């Protein structure tokens, strides 16, 4: 029987950051708790935040369950995490700047050339083009899990357009509204500086041809997109325009936005659409979401696109294996955060190991997301394992495998009271002129007893994440 690290109760004691929460829970009878839970749900519903996190699909109008029991980090724990996250974000951006110019890491034999240059996410169209400040990934979402007091592992990196940050902000907002007392009793570092930090980050990567206060916009695929709420929420909080492709056009050397007072130049586009839809002249010719000519303006320094086209080559699950190597190669440092050991099924000896140990492993698609198309060996029936075995054998390149991690647990409100449930964490690291990280992130929780899958499409919920001040 695997033992799990419980972030509140450890070695028969309450860990210090959770000390005050024990009284808080004790003083909350079941009836009050149910009332509060209903109130929280009502608040979320009223705000309209019902989208699926991380583009998982599923019912867009379903509310993701919010668990009122917060997850707490000490300042000391967070300081180490913060250093590790920033280090990783720097290395990922250095890797991107490298593989789109001289490719030193490939020449040095530290990562296979094929993995980089034959990768679907590698954009030949931006090779040789240097984005402002050499930053490709301006918002790096790093998914972390914890297995012990000091043991954190990176599950995956998200260098394109990681979503879910609106949950981080709303979870805090609602907790503060419902339980103002515990925010007085605990010194919790604020997260509400995120929108301004994001705006500052985006403005700091204005293009070379911009000689005034940069005009930043958010480009959304539209209201049918599952994360549209987040797009409009961030636009509101940053005080910038939310636009769709049809609102923008290229004329001469610049991109312009249609407004009631006539065209207004756009300098920085925080895009929440994929590379392939950005510009039908450069990528998919059938794209109706993009702006014809955008890529020529971008590549000639007339507009900035965040994340930069081509950033996805750094967050591929097979490239992930090499991120610790990137940290050493570019920064000359040892990685502070560890990778989960990963077997690549495209390598025949590793494939053999994977097929022999399917019952203990987690197997994922290289380009998959959202907890779909994955096998959690210990939680699967032998029929499910055999069916998955055939899928892997048919297309081994498409799969990686990892050990089943003993994800830490945090107390969570359940039917019977409070019980431990498994969690992960996605902090959002901002990279521009500076690298910034608000103290917190999105904690996802597997609400089903014993489940290790935190994805909302698979019965996951969210929690407020606290980082205590000194």
């Amino acid at each position: 029987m695997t033992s799990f690290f419980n972030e509140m109760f450890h070695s028969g004691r309450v860990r210090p950051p959770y000390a005050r929460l024990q009284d808080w829970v004790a003083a909350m009878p079941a009836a009050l708790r149910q009332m509060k839970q209903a109130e929280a749900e009502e608040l979320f519903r009223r705000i309209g935040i019902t989208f699926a996190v991380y583009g998982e699909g599923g019912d867009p109008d379903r509310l993701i369950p919010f668990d009122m029991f917060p997850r707490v980090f000490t300042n000391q724990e967070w300081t180490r995490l913060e250093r590790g996250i920033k280090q990783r974000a720097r290395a990922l951006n250095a890797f991107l700047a490298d593989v789109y110019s001289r490719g030193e890491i490939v020449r040095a034999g530290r990562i296979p050339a094929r993995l980089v240059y034959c990768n679907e996410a590698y954009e030949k169209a931006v090779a040789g083009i240097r984005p402002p400040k050499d930053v490709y990934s301006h918002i790096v979402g790093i998914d972390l899990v914890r297995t012990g007091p000091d043991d954190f592992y990176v599950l995956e990196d998200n260098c394109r357009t990681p979503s879910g940050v609106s949950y981080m902000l709303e979870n805090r907002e609602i907790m503060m509204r419902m339980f103002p007392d515990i925010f007085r009793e605990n010194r919790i570092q604020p997260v509400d500086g995120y929108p301004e930090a994001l705006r500052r980050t985006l403005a700091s990567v204005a293009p070379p041809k911009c000689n005034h206060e940069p005009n930043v916009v958010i480009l959304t695929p539209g209201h049918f997109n599952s994360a549209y709420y987040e797009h409009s929420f961030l636009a509101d909080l940053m005080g910038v325009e939310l636009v769709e492709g049809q609102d923008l056009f290229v004329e001469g050397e610049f991109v312009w936005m249609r407004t009631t007072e006539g065209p207004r130049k756009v300098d920085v586009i925080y895009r929440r659409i994929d590379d392939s839809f950005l510009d039908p002249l450069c990528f998919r010719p059938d794209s109706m979401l993009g702006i014809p000519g955008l890529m020529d303006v971008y590549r000639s320094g007339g507009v900035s696109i965040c994340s930069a086209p081509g950033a996805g080559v750094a967050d591929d699950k097979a490239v992930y294996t090499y991120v610790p190597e990137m940290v050493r190669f570019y920064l000359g440092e040892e990685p502070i955060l560890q990778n989960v050991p990963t077997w690549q099924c495209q390598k025949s000896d590793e494939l053999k190991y994977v097929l022999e140990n399917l019952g203990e492993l987690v197997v994922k698609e290289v380009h998959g997301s959202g907890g779909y198309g994955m096998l959690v060996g210990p939680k699967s029936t032998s029929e499910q394992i055999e069916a998955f075995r055939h899928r892997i054998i048919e297309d081994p390149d498409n799969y990686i495998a990892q050990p089943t991690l003993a994800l830490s647990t945090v107390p969570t409100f359940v039917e019977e009271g409070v019980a431990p449930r498994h969690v992960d964490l996605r902090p959002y690291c901002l990279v521009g002129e500076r690298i910034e990280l608000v103290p917190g992130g999105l904690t996802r929780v597997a609400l089903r007893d014993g489940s290790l899958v935190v994805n909302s499409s698979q019965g996951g919920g969210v929690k407020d994440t606290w980082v205590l001040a000194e």
Partner: protein
Amino acid sequence: MRLAVEHVTLYRYDQPVRAAVQSHRLHPSSFDGQRVEDWQVTVSGGVKGGGFRDGAGDWIQGWTVAGPVSEITVTVTGLVETRDLTGVLRGHREQVSPMAYLRETGPTRADAALAALARSVEADSSLALAHGLAAIVAESIAYAPGKTHAHTTAAEALAMGEGVCQDHAHALIACARDREMPGRYVSGYLLADAEGRPHEAAHAWAELWVDGLGWVGFDPANRCCPDERYIRLGSGFDARDAAPIRGIARSPGEEQMDVRVAVQSVQNAQQ
């Protein structure tokens, strides 16, 4: 050889266009095999956009046209001095890793027949393999204008056994990639043949990455490697990616396109 180019593309719209955007790969770069003496591109009613040299060494130039217009004319005139380097692209500055050109695209996907064709070539060197693939593509797809269209894939052209330079280039790229040899599509111009053999003045061929030589051009349509009769405009994964003009016009109506290309050998101006 000095080659004079005149290349006019006329777009006609049956209903006026409100706005048009184009991206041009229409500026030959200079390298050991060609030196650009003079080159002009104009777009009727056009505003010049941003221009830059991409990682493959091509100059890309954006243009926009503010409507309403019923016609857009893109006129290219230029003078290029060329040398025969037997297809070797020497002295061409570029940054993209050749490995990036191992990726297949829709038109260059090798189906079973293309793969079988590619694997039928036996060669003991990378250069011999490249020549062998170019020869077998030329044998398998007869030059026949009008049988294929802009969206025909390499697999379809091989199945028909007929095609034009675009189909030859796509098929050669597909075969090369199947043999793990990077291949890419090149668009350019070709001087009229004195013997009167059919050819296309707006031409296309393929470049294959040959160990020890780098990129080498192969023109299966004319069963040769590019020489001093060829002007190289630019490259890409396939015909669409390497297109000299990519454009979109906002018009509810139909577009008609007329292309006229003349390439002539001219005497040295001085003397």
